[in-house]
Structures are given as structure tokens and as C-alpha cells.
């Protein structure tokens, strides 16, 4: 018998009917939908035990304390360290995504010479040749670390050492010029201030260690009609800080110095400032015109700011007029003003003031990516990530976030001395080397970072001052060995010096200073940010929402 098409149809019909009574269709239905729940191309988190470790952020010189959640040996989450004396558990938005930076596509993974792939040996040879040919300059963006001291001792033989200070410290520059006290020893005694007049400083937007002022503000000022801590923001546009400030004074762009002078004059005319303080040359009318606000407004502002003391003026960038205003206000060296920390740090040469002829410039990875040395020499730049605008002949891959052991000196502009240690939590990729390790190869006699840190712990222990701050704080004198001190510091404890005495810094001004210093830059959250890239999750802030404008330096 021959099969007809109709037979085929009937057979198919029977098969279809039968199939419905088997697991096939139902199991397939179920399994395909389960497949959509576990698509092989969707990454899944690793299985494994989770632990929390204390560490410190090394992405900018503020060294905020962090608690890092680790799963299967990798950082998977970051939160603030509540007991940290400076940032008090607060972090900037970037800190929370920083643990993903090490996998950023822009991560620098091998030595680059003028853009093409090279090797450490070649870089080493080139650098040694440079050392032999002449003197080298080493530029550091985070002075005071063990690594920094290694740089300095290297420079003693081979050249000169310069630092790139962060804006907060640069803003303290005039006081150093007038008093001789290095900026790295100066700090703002915010905790005891009654009124802060900020000349465009982004106090609530990533200024200094983010936690320090925001915590203070939220406890003493936020939303209060008559706050304990009065924040007066002087700014052309309504920045975040201006929006949150107790008062926002709107002035013409670039007229900060003029307003400072006007305020000083108003204070003198209203007899709110001592007679021996200098009188600015410009009349109130002139300044008022310059700032586009009325004379009455200036007088009124002067009266309000002294109404609740101590009063302190803060500028975004170095601004001699604002500094002079502080002198007039008597805020320099006074409680709640500009104070000098106990341990007097040395003063460093600013990187861009380095002169003379150099055969090579070595730039540490702590230097902001947009820094350009104004020295005509071969540039060896250490960096964790590519894409910085800064000039470089050699790009040398440095360890990334939480990948190297480093010590954390006092945060810029902090009123108290602190010291602690950040241990490496994640293994760096094999190719990575820090500047210190590189120099150790050039000059094998130099000590290692570990040894310097060990020595520093020894000194701290024998100085017997200050306390170790953890959940509860213990006096250093109560510890019984430097090793114990070191161990504590490595596990998240922070050494805190006794609070500074008032005084310690004097500024006398014969006459009102010539306007100096850069115009205040629009400093925001990324000013102190060192890497040329941002944590990928920062897209939440400027791409997936309109909360932030795209930061200029980012390369996502």
C-alpha cells in the first residue's frame, strides 16, 4: 500500500495528540522559561564566604576610612567607616563605586612608551640613563606617605622633589607666605566655628574629606532657621553648596577678592575689626560696583558674619584677599579659625615651581591626571588608568584601588594630626609596579615602603602621644609594643594626635595684599579625584539621571 499525503497528515495528527500526553511539551515550556532566568551570557556573582575588612581610600589625599565587603577574596561593596575621625563614616559618591575601578576598561595594563607597548626593563634602562645624564625631578600628589619619603631621599642624591597640592591646601598658601608655617601643617578648625563665609568653596560638594563638613553641617545647620553653624555661600551661581547654605550671596563672577576687600573695609568702618588691621584701598562703592551688590548689602553682610563667632572665611582656590579678610577677622591662629597642627611638617616645593634643567621627570600615580610639568624633560608617569590629559613619554602601570600597601597621613586642611595604614586587599595584576618599587630597582640600597611604615609605627609608639581610634579609642601609652600599634593600624584603627593649641601661627599684614592667586575654579566633587576615569557606576549620576553634569575629566 502506498502512503498518501492524507496518511501523513493523519499520522501527524495522531503524533501531535499523543505528544500532549507526554512530558515533552510541558517540560520544554518549563525549561525554556527557566533558561530565560539563567541566560548563560548574564554574569552571576561568585559563591563564597563574605567578610568585612577595614581600609582607607587612596584615590585622593583625604584617605577616608572605608569598610570593604569581600567575597571570595574580592571587594564587592564599600561603605564608610563610622569611627574615622575625619570623614566619620561618610564617603563621596565615587567612593561607593571605587571597588570596580580596577576592572575599568581603561585600566593601564602594560608599560607604554609614546603610546606603544613597551616593557619595564626598557623603562628602567631609560630612567637609569636619565639619572646618569643629569638630575631627575620626582613629582608627588600625596606627600607625607612612606613612599613620599622614599622619593625625597632618592631626590637628595639624584635631583629635586616637588608636590602637587590639592585645592584645599593651595587655598592655604597665603598664610604660609605670611607666617612661614607650611600649608601641610595648617588646617581649618571647622568644628569650633560659628560662621563660615565660603567664597565659592564647594564645602558640601566634595570639598576636603566629604564627610568632615557635611556631617558637621547636617548636625548644626541643616534646615535650621537660626543654625549653630552659619554657612554663608558667596557664589555667582547657585551651586549645591549655595542651595543648602544658610545664606547665598550672589556676586558677579570673579569678584570674590573685591567682596573680601569690601567686607574688610566695612568691618573697619563699622569698628568691628581692630584698628591695626590693614584697610583695603578700594572704596565700598567701587567694590560694590565690581560685585554688583549694594553697599547696604555689604555692610549688612559684614554685620551678620561677625554676629556669631568665631567666623572663618574659606576660598576655593588660593586667594590673598580672602586670606587677608581672615587676618582682619582675627581668624588666623584662633580657635574656630585657621590653626596649626602640633606636628610641624616640612614645606614642599610646588611641582610647577621646580626650575633648572632635568633629564627626566617621574610623576607618581597620586598626581592628578591633568597635571603637566612645565619642565622640558622625558616624563615617566605612573598611572592606574589611561586617558589622562597629562603629558607622558612613558606610561607605567601602577597598582590600582586597594591593591598596594600604603600609609595614610593627615588629610589636607584637617585640624588634627592623624596616621593610619591601608593594607592591600586585592592582588594587583602581575604587570603593576608602584613608583616606590620602581625606584627600589634603580637604587637597591633604598628601603622598602613596608620598612618605612614599620619605622614610623616605631616612632609613633615611642612618642607616646595621641590615641588609637577604633570603635572605642585607646591611648598610645596604653599599648605595649610598636608591633601591636602597627597591627591595630593595619586593621582599621586610626592614630589621632591631641587637638592643636590655639596660636602656633601669626600673620601680620602691613597693607592690604595685591590681588593674587588663580580665579576660583568651579571646584566640585572631582577636584581631588586623581584617576582619569570614574567608577562605571557614576553613570547613575550624569547619564542615567540629570543630577550631575558630566565631569570633564571622566572617561567612562
Amino acid at each position: 500500500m502506498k502512503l498518501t499525503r492524507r496518511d501523513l497528515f493523519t499520522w501527524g495528527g495522531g503524533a501531535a495528540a499523543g505528544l500532549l500526553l507526554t512530558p515533552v511539551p510541558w517540560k520544554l515550556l518549563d525549561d525554556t522559561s527557566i533558561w530565560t532566568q539563567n541566560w548563560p551570557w548574564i554574569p552571576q556573582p561568585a559563591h563564597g564566604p563574605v567578610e568585612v575588612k577595614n581600609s582607607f581610600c587612596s584615590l585622593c589625599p583625604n584617605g577616608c576610612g572605608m569598610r570593604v565587603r569581600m567575597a571570595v577574596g574580592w571587594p564587592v561593596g564599600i561603605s564608610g567607616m563610622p569611627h574615622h575621625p575625619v570623614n566619620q563614616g561618610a564617603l563621596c559618591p565615587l567612593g561607593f563605586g571605587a571597588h570596580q575601578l580596577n576592572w575599568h576598561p581603561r585600566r593601564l595594563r602594560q608599560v607604554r612608551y609614546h603610546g606603544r607597548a613597551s616593557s619595564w626593563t626598557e623603562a628602567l634602562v631609560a630612567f637609569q640613563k636619565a639619572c646618569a645624564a643629569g638630575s631627575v625631578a620626582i613629582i608627588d600628589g600625596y606627600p607625607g606617605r612612606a613612599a613620599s619619603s622614599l622619593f625625597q631621599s632618592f631626590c637628595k642624591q639624584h635631583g629635586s622633589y616637588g608636590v602637587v597640592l590639592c585645592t584645599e591646601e593651595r587655598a592655604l598658601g597665603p598664610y604660609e607666605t605670611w607666617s612661614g608655617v607650611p600649608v601641610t601643617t595648617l588646617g581649618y578648625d571647622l568644628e569650633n566655628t560659628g560662621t563660615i563665609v565660603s567664597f565659592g568653596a564647594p564645602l558640601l560638594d566634595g570639598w576636603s574629606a566629604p564627610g568632615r563638613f557635611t556631617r558637621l553641617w547636617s548636625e548644626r545647620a541643616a534646615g535650621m532657621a537660626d543654625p549653630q553653624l552659619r554657612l554663608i555661600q558667596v557664589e555667582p551661581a547657585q551651586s549645591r553648596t549655595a542651595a543648602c547654605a544658610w545664606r547665598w550671596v550672589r556676586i558677579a563672577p570673579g569678584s570674590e577678592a573685591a567682596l573680601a576687600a569690601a567686607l574688610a573695609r566695612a568691618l573697619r568702618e563699622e569698628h568691628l575689626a581692630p584698628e591695626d588691621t590693614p584697610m583695603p584701598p578700594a572704596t565700598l562703592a567701587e567694590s560694590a560696583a565690581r560685585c554688583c551688590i549694594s553697599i547696604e548689602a555689604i555692610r549688612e553682610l559684614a554685620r551678620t558674619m561677625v554676629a556669631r563667632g568665631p567666623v572663618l572665611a574659606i576660598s576655593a582656590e588660593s586667594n590673598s584677599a580672602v586670606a587677608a579678610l581672615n587676618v582682619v577677622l582675627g581668624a588666623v591662629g584662633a580657635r574656630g579659625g585657621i590653626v596649626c597642627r602640633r606636628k610641624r611638617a616640612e614645606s614642599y616645593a610646588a611641582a610647577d615651581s621646580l626650575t633648572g634643567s632635568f633629564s627626566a621627570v617621574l610623576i607618581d600615580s597620586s598626581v592628578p591626571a591633568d597635571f603637566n610639568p612645565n619642565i622640558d624633560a622625558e616624563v615617566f608617569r605612573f598611572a592606574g588608568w589611561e586617558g589622562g590629559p597629562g603629558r607622558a613619554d612613558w606610561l607605567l602601570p601602577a597598582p590600582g584601588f586597594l591593591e598596594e600597601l600604603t600609609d595614610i597621613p593627615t588629610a589636607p586642611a584637617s585640624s588634627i594630626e592623624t596616621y593610619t595604614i591601608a593594607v592591600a586587599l586585592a592582588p594587583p595584576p602581575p604587570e603593576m609596579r608602584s613608583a616606590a618599587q620602581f625606584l627600589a630597582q634603580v637604587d637597591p640600597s633604598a628601603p622598602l615602603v613596608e620598612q618605612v611604615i614599620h619605622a614610623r609605627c616605631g616612632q609613633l609608639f615611642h612618642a607616646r602621644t595621641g590615641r588609637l581610634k577604633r570603635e572605642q579609642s585607646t591611648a598610645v601609652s596604653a599599648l605595649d609594643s610598636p608591633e601591636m600599634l602597627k597591627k591595630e593600624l593595619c586593621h582599621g584603627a586610626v592614630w589621632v594626635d591631641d587637638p592643636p593649641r590655639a596660636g602656633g601661627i601669626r600673620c601680620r599684614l602691613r597693607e592690604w595684599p595685591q590681588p593674587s592667586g588663580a580665579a576660583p575654579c568651579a571646584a566640585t566633587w572631582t577636584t581631588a579625584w586623581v584617576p582619569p576615569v570614574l567608577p562605571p557606576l557614576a553613570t547613575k549620576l550624569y547619564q542615567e539621571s540629570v543630577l550631575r553634569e558630566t565631569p570633564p575629566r571622566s572617561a567612562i
Partner: protein
Amino acid sequence: MSRSSMTFGFGFLTALAVGWFAFPYVLYVQRAQPLEFRHKTHADKSGVTECKDCHAFLEDGEFAGIPKTETCTACHADRIGTSRPEARLVDSYIKKGQEPAWLVYSRQPANVWFSHAIHTRRAGLKCAECHGAYGESDEVRTYEVNRISGYSRDIEGQSILRLRSAAPNGMKMSDCEDCHRKRSIEVGCLGCHQ
């Protein structure tokens, strides 16, 4: 019995045969475990009686799962006997300090959150109630994985009809639900999912 109805019936039967007997073989792939581990032998030789002696909890209540090789090293620092698996264990894992890539029969997908602590300590379940008396068995079962969903066959249950026999009889969501319903325990989706 007309011709057409015969052809129909023939098609019907073919489908049944294929669906019930051939299909499971096509659906599941068999994989071998990296090592030959005998629970019973270990229990007898080492005198271990409790599951938790080897499958321990971390202090935060997290379940540690399969012991790491250092646990084995206690006895197997050097070869015991001359069997080939023994040799493999010592040479390629213990000496190298590597972990065998065990295929976990009861591994749930990433979207499931299961706390052994809650089920054993609070609810007082015995391990065998879900995992079966595997601790007393003296052989390594072959690991079967579903080609499409990627689930271990232990999750879906050995019987394709999902008829309940002795444990392990499946660890699918419906199995969890049945048990919870029996004990009248109310948890929402995210009580067990993450």
C-alpha cells in the same frame, strides 16, 4: 477499524514512546565527578557521625558547603593505599593546594536564597529530609544536568513525572512550597529569592 484511524493510532503511540522513554535521555547530560568520594567509608574510618562535622557553618550562620582540601589533608597528607583516585587526590589537589571542582547535586540557581541555618537550626530539619541518605551511600552518583535549563537533575527530581518517592525527590520551587504549606509557613517571593 478504518485505515485512517489506524494511522492516527500509530502516530499516537509513536509520540507516547518517544515522549516517555527517549526524551529524558536527550534532555539530560551526564557528567563525572572529579574524584571518587565515599561518604560511608569516611564515616567508618574517621568515626565522623554528624554531617555538620564536615559540612560546617561559618560564625555568621553562612553554610560553608563542601569542605576545603585542608580538611582532607588531615588524613590524606600522603597517599593512603594505592588506588588511582587516591593518587589523583593527593597529587593533583592536596599537593597543589587546589580545590576539586565538585559538581554540586543540589546547587540552586543564583536567584535562590537558601539559609541552611534557618532550616536546620530554627526549623530543625534533618539534612536527609532534603538531600536524602546520601551520607550513608558508598558511591559517587553521576551528576546529570538539564541541557536547556542547566539545572542539576536533583533539583528537578529523578522522576520526570515529579512523582514523590523517597528523598531526594526534587528541590524545585514547588517542593519548597509543599513543605512550607505543610508547616503553614508564609514567606513571600523574596523570602527565598534574591
